[in-house]
């Protein structure tokens, strides 16, 4: 036990000495939460559009005013002919051109049916869809404004939609679990694999290994401080979530923290596994970046829906610890679920941890022989 604390303390000194790394480790959760919370929104506003008004009538003027008054669109340019559309799109700023045909007003007043054309830059498919939706909605509103309110029809099937768990559709509910999973993985797995690789590179690992301390104590002593650091970061993220973004903790806080701890252990085991394979810091770094960070960010369902991915990727998603962890967090924290609903994903994490540890122990032994 004494030797354990000796190693633990040594690692704490390393962490505290290297101010820049420490600063990054502390700043990272803040930055991520703030970026996800404030910068990455799917809010749709001030999208730049151009207008090609061939009608130049009173009605088209009213329509343009209606568009200009909306929060969603910003009229960046007025163009004169169809030929102007191509160059304006190529500059990449304007996303949609609203074409008002010459007979717009006449058709609207006489025939009761006018045409409008949206020409959308479709390179960005999601954005194109959104632009289309908002523009259509705006034109519909314009139409109903022009002709007065419609009365509702009989034989109506009403739809009562209730957004449960997240009535205000706050994006924080979605990203917070993902950010926790990412940060814990980053600090636990990446830091430990790097620090162990560093001791191997500089040769200090050998000195530790020839000491009478068992290899297990050495490894545990090395990873201990990172576990503590990860845990502190988890608490920081949770506090920010609750107080800045009003994300509730509906389930048991203790269960939540226990689950975080379980995930930290899984991540540490993964870090140890990587370090037993990596000879240098560079390799450990690239390894953790590719094997851990990318899949965790992209395949755990945190940024992109897993169900849209091809089967092999859905399978990979199933073997990523973060997938199970985010599920646990969402259940406990946001849905207020009890232990019985997280027992399966938690079991998977325990199993993964054991597998990682067994493999690293195996490769550790073969290396010594």
């Amino acid at each position: 036990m004494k030797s354990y604390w000796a190693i633990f303390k040594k690692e704490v000194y390393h962490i505290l000495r290297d101010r820049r790394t420490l600063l990054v480790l502390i700043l990272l959760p803040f930055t991520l939460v703030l970026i996800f919370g404030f910068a990455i929104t799917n809010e749709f506003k001030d999208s730049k559009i151009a207008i090609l008004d061939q009608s130049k009538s009173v009605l088209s003027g009213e329509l343009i005013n209606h568009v200009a008054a909306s929060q969603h669109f910003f009229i960046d340019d007025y163009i004169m002919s169809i030929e102007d559309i191509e160059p304006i799109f190529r500059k990449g700023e304007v996303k949609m051109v609203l074409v008002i045909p010459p007979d717009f007003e006449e058709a609207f007043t006489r025939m009761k049916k006018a045409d409008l054309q949206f020409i959308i830059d479709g390179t960005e498919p999601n954005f194109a869809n959104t632009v289309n939706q908002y523009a259509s909605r705006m034109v519909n509103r314009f139409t109903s404004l022009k002709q007065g309110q419609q009365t509702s029809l009989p034989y109506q099937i009403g739809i009562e939609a209730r957004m449960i768990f997240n009535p205000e559709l706050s994006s924080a509910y979605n990203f917070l679990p993902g950010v926790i999973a990412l940060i814990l993985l980053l600090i636990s797995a990446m830091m430990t694999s790097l620090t162990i690789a560093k001791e191997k590179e500089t040769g200090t690992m050998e000195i530790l290994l020839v000491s009478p301390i068992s290899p297990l104590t050495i490894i545990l002593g090395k990873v201990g401080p990172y576990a503590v650091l990860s845990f502190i970061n988890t608490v920081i993220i949770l506090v920010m979530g609750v107080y800045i973004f009003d994300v509730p903790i509906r389930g048991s806080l203790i269960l939540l923290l226990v689950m975080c701890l379980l995930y930290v252990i899984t991540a540490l085991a993964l870090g140890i596994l990587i370090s037993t394979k990596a000879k240098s810091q560079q390799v450990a770094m690239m390894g953790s970046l590719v094997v851990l960070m990318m899949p965790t960010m992209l395949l755990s369902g945190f940024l992109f829906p897993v169900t849209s991915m091809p089967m092999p990727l859905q399978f990979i998603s199933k073997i990523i610890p973060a997938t199970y962890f985010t599920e646990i967090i969402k259940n406990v924290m946001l849905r207020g679920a009890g232990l019985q609903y997280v027992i399966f994903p938690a079991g998977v994490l325990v199993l993964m941890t054991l597998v990682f540890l067994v493999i690293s122990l195996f490769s550790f032994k073969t290396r010594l022989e």
Partner: protein
Amino acid sequence: MIVLLYIIKKEFLQIFRDKAMLPLMTVLPIIQLIVLSNATSNEIKQVNLHVEDMDKSQFSQRLIHKIAANNIFHITSSSQNPDDVYRSFMNGTADIVLRIPNNAERDFYRNKSTEVQLLIDAINGQAATVGSGYLNVIVNSFNKEMRSEVKMITPNPNGTMIAIEYSNWYNPELNYKHFMVPGILGELVIILILILTAMNIVKEREVGTIEQINVTPIKKWQFILGKLIPFLCLGLFLMVVGLILGKVLFDIPMVGSLWTVFAYVVICLVTVLGMGLLLSNYADTQQQAIFVAFFFVIIFVLLCGLFTPIESMPVWAQKLTIPNPIAHFVAVMRNVLLKGSTMADMSYRFIVTGILALIFNTLAIVTYKKTI
């Protein structure tokens, strides 16, 4: 000049000799490109539905059939027990619960109005809104069918309407991969190059070889250029391979001039290399360099417009993308490859990146100290 060649040769020798790093620098980014291009789709293709049909009528059955016919919705379970609603959310088997109340059919025919309920798990806001949006459309069209059956066909013949005709240019099928692949390629190459260069000089410092170089009469710019060019070549090589793969595997369009693309790639890579070397000059250890580089990479990636459009960001965040080479890179790749934008169209990006390149490389040369 010849001195430069010797440094470049040495860097290349080291790159090719490191058998552990070489595959990580060449094969892995390619694999990542393929994997990520398939993974990063925001399209919602599947929404799981739990149905609580309390009515058990012909009306409710028809509605359920109509929903099931749409291939986005998977009806994973159905029951009449209200407890199952909670359970299906907790188990993750349902994103949305459709609740058809008792007497839905009777109300429809007798009271000429009825109601169905959607309970939407809104933790993933996007899936929730998309899913409920589709369900709304389906229910409305079901409503129309039912209405025409009870012979109330006409939807107000006197109403004026504006018909909207829309066309999506450049990507009429709204193929998500065409949009993502060029961006992901740029992002991967930049991250790799940034991290490799950030670690490079620090490594020489850690090992001690840098001191031996510092006592030679080598010029600072020779040394920095010697470090820069091999990684520039690596970056260009990856770009070429990536673009070929993108064409072969994903059939990404290449409307614009590849010369424009590569002219920009060179400027942008030089910027990134300058950043990496600057970090390398300041870092004491490789670990530190890695972490600081990583910190910037993560901010650059999240705010580069690859996953969420820059237009949707608040103004301050949009301003933060100006010194972000990945953001410019992604924009240029998309505009030139998909739309055929010319160098003149992209002049803003070229100029901004050029200035960044100048700033970072000057700083890298100035802050590289041959003395202690």
